[in-house]
């Protein structure tokens, strides 16, 4: 896997040149945004079960047949697999967000995901819907536009408005998963 720093190293090595001032501008921004990045990562890790459960519930509510006999979330064993997958995707998104680079998400989560879902008969349109809900929930928590407890309430480290850029980065990682399986 790569992070923002090693990504810069790999691309500089391809040119055989050292990393100079121009490349360091982006990396200095990554470092100066570190606290926001950490807060945003915590926003995911502290709300995993809630985000995944809401997304799967939302997906089922929109397609009530799924939990009926013959549906893809019947019996509970398959619904549980669905919740587990939601948490796995959130885990890899949190890794990518912390690293500032999607390589770990690509290598260890997305690679082969579509093929696996096809082989298992998972309806990708529904899976995409669940990931879209997770994306919306994650962005809402990070930017404090959610209706529940606010992430920065009671602490002075920042505000939701300051996390917009990081939230957009997180959204782009969810989009990567969506694009890969649709």
């Amino acid at each position, binding site marked *: 896997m790569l992070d923002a720093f090693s990504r810069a190293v790999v691309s500089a090595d391809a040119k055989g040149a050292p990393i100079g001032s121009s490349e360091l501008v982006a990396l200095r921004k990554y470092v100066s945004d570190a606290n926001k990045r950490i807060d945003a*990562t915590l926003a995911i890790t502290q709300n995993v079960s809630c985000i995944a459960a809401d997304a799967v519930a939302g997906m089922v509510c929109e397609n009530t047949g799924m939990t009926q006999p013959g549906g893809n979330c019947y019996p509970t064993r398959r619904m549980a697999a669905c919740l587990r997958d939601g948490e796995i995707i959130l885990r890899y998104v949190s890794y990518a967000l912390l690293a500032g680079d999607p390589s770990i998400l690509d290598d260890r989560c997305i690679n082969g995901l579509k093929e696996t879902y096809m082989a298992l008969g998972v309806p990708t349109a529904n899976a995409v819907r669940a990931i879209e809900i997770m994306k919306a929930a994650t962005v809402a928590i990070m930017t404090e536009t959610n209706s529940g407890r606010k992430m920065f309430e009671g602490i002075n480290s920042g505000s939701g408005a300051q996390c917009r850029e990081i939230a957009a980065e997180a959204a782009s990682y969810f989009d990567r998963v969506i694009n890969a399986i649709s």
Partner: protein
Amino acid sequence: MKSAVTTVVTAADAAGRFPSTSDIEAVKGSFDRAAARMQAAEKLAAGIDQVTADAVDAVYGKGSYDQANKDKCARDIHHYLRLINYCLVTGGTGPLDEWGIAGMREVIRAQVLPTAAYIEAFAHIRDRVCVPRDMDQQAAAEFKSLLDYLINALS
């Protein structure tokens, strides 16, 4: 590629858990050193040709040597300094380990290269770093520790 962040994330993934508070502390710790590291990387990148030329001159002294040999020596020193620049950016020894040190012994033995000359060159660079003319104290410390790491691997 090993760096402070990738080490932490890879370990978390191996255990199948989310980044924990201690993982995040470790990442934060590496960010605290990042400003010094990046300053050292920036100064080194800006002066890499000059530093290489100085080191080669110091090793060869005033004697007359085959220019082709000198050029190859300069090329190698430049290569190792570039890897040190990468290490300063990643905050770990990953680039040196993976691209510089792995297989180095075999190559040195096969080509009968004079490691003592390389060591002298890197020791010269290390001893010549001047604070605050070249870089800040902390940046110089990061740079020197990587030079020592390389010297150690060559010895």
